[in-house]
């Protein structure tokens, strides 16, 4: 398989920051050199260090990493917006780049004039732009405003139009940098669909995004960049998990360095921990998670419902453990006590998870403890889990399942059986 994109020992150093330089800075430098006085050299910003990887034709790779890891720099070099300090990038095929689309539109020109101008800048010929004009406008949902100056567009409309123009480029190699983060949920879904279409047409895609759900959906493989170096290259679940692990370690270290873990409201004060079988706040996939809530109640005899949820940082829970929903009786609180909720065989994959919780008054109105994050725990894994049964982002659970397959042979045999039974 020929490589569509290949990075070969690419290093990119910036001299200092991207600050304005005045003539006096350079002159001062020259004077300094002449007079022998050494100014402390500004340490270079190492955006990329010896980055090498290859992306075969027709495949879609994601570039993952924290902010400042060098992802955008790599993409910029591949689309010839900037050049490497050493090393070489080779791209085979016509290149189209969606890098922070939308803000290249000129505010004084109308939408129509901008489509024409931008289409040409991005590489579509005059004929191509004309042929796709209606498609572009329709995709961006700006038909009504297309002849008005762009400065009258809302920012959402501008972004959508910019993305739409670029999304109809149909190049051989597509470099996408955070371009899917535009528009509302409906438009984002449309954009993902469009990207999938382009994928199905055999294009090569290198995709940079912080939207790890979209990444997992669009790219079966990934490359993890950390501080300008390639840490891992492989199947996307592995790459995402390694990346998330690094993210979580940083977060967990900050957390364990002593954050406030006591929560109180009304007469109640609680402290919650998520514990594995050995009492530490980490456990393995499949082991029992014990959510332990130690409480102190100034009015013994109060009755309350406990309600816990586990999430990996997304906006909703992965699962809930709730007395209210499950129809349990409220608990009668003593002056001091411990409420535990045991989750046997926790199906979660290695990550740091948050435990959120709430303690409700018996009558169902109001809370002692409002719904909020109470603590964190970590899931570790000793061995690799096969990648067929889970997703790293969307539902990071290992769900065992069994497929059964009814084929013609089975149906024919069954039909024969039925007919045998029917006919006397």
């Amino acid at each position, binding site marked *: 398989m*020929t490589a569509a994109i290949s990075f070969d020992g690419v290093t990119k150093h910036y001299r200092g920051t*991207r600050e*304005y*330089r*005045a003539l006096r800075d*350079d002159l001062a430098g020259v004077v300094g050199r002449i007079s022998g006085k050494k100014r402390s050299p500004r340490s270079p910003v190492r955006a990329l260090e010896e980055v090498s990887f290859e992306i075969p*034709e027709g495949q879609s790779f994601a570039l993952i990493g924290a902010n400042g890891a060098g992802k955008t720099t790599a993409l*910029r070099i*591949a*689309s*010839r*917006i*900037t*050049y*490497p*300090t*050493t*090393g*070489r*990038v*080779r*791209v*085979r*095929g*016509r290149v189209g*780049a969606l*890098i*922070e*689309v939308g*803000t*290249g539109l*000129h505010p*004084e*020109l109308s939408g129509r*004039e901008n489509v*024409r*101008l931008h289409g*040409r*800048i*991005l590489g579509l010929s005059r004929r191509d732009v004309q042929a796709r004009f209606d498609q572009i406008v329709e995709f961006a949902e700006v038909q009504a405003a297309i002849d008005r100056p762009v400065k009258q567009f809302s920012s959402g409309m501008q972004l959508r139009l910019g993305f739409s123009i670029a999304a109809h480029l149909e190049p051989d190699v597509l470099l996408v940098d955070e371009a899917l983060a535009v528009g509302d949920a409906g438009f984002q879904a449309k954009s993902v669909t469009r990207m999938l279409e382009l*994928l*199905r*047409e*055999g294009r090569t895609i290198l995709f940079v995004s912080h939207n790890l759900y979209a990444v*997992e*959906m669009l790219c079966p493989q990934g490359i993890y960049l950390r501080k300008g170096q390639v840490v891992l290259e492989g199947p996307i679940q592995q790459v995402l998990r390694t990346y998330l692990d690094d993210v979580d370690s940083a977060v967990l270290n900050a957390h364990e360095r002593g954050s406030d873990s006591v929560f109180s409201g009304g007469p109640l004060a609680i402290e919650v921990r998520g514990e594995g079988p050995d009492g530490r706040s980490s456990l393995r996939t499949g082991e029992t998670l014990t959510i332990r809530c130690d409480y102190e109640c100034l009015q013994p005899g109060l009755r309350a419902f406990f309600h816990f*949820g586990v999430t990996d940082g997304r906006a*909703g*829970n*992965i*699962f*809930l453990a*709730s007395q209210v929903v499950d129809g349990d009786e409220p608990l009668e609180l003593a002056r001091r006590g411990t409420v535990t909720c045991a989750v046997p065989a926790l199906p979660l994959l290695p990550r740091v998870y948050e435990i959120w919780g709430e303690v409700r008054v018996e009558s169902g109105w109001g809370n002692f403890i409002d719904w909020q994050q109470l603590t964190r725990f970590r899931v570790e894994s000793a061995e690799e889990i096969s990648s067929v*049964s889970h*997703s790293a982002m*969307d*539902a990071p*659970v290992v*769900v065992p*399942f069994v497929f059964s397959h009814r084929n013609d042979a089975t149906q024919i045999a069954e039909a024969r059986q039925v007919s045998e039974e029917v006919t006397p």
Partner: protein
Amino acid sequence: MRSQQAREDAVSVDVAGGEAAARISTAPRSAPAEVSEKPILDVEGGPGGISRDALRELWAFREVLWAFAVRQVTVKYKQAAIGVGWAVVQPIAAAGIFALFLGRFANVASEGAPYLLFALCGTVIWTYFSGSAASAAESLVTDSALLRKVFFPREVLPLAAILAGLVDFAPALATLIVAALLYGFVPGLTWLALPLVLAIVVLFATAFGLGLSGLNVYYRDVRYVLPFVLQLGLFASPVVYSLASVPAGSRDLYAVLNPLGAAIDGLRRIVLHNEWPHLWVSFGALGWCAALVVGSYALFKRLERGFADRI
């Protein structure tokens, strides 16, 4: 808060979605085009420079150059109330003020012709030159957003500014012709030499604009230095006085080194005196401008590599 039931449904859907995604990635793809058909692009470090590839690439992007020039003209005239009229008013107003203060009060010599017309020859050229040069110098900084996002040969931006400036030049020249007729100066055979004069001005503006635009990205000082330099240039060029004022020994060399000198003098010879422009001086200036263009283009290409990092 989602109920547990909803979450269970979501989980099952997501698992299915995960499988669907896996299926898509292994679906048979349309066969990629033959390897030999595809262009190969190498992006490497090292200094940039003029090369045949660079020129070929510029030619390939000529439509983008045209589109940018059109955009500049469109935007400029969408906003302005007078529109194209401004291209006419500017040189006339300048010539008028010079005629009053320099022609009448200071009594500057004007080669025997009415001072207004004399000055108009100068202001028409100077307005085009200073306007295009300033606009070209700022072109890269103005469109810095594009420079960070899309690839195209960067010289397209200052060149588009120079090209767009010609749209102003045309009505200004027309005004000059009308004024000449009004004063009784009839076009003669020598008017055929006008393109030579124009070529000198446009080439000089191109060289000036290209070089400055590149430097402006690296040193923002250019933005402040330029108006001052243009002020000096206005008096260093024979806009308000005649080339004949320059001492005879250095006159020709001066006219070549400051091509606007050759151009303005040439224009005056054509319009006011029905003479051909000074041959050696004009072609010398033309050659000098061509050399300047090559030099500033080489400088530009050298600087180009660092634009996206600096801007």
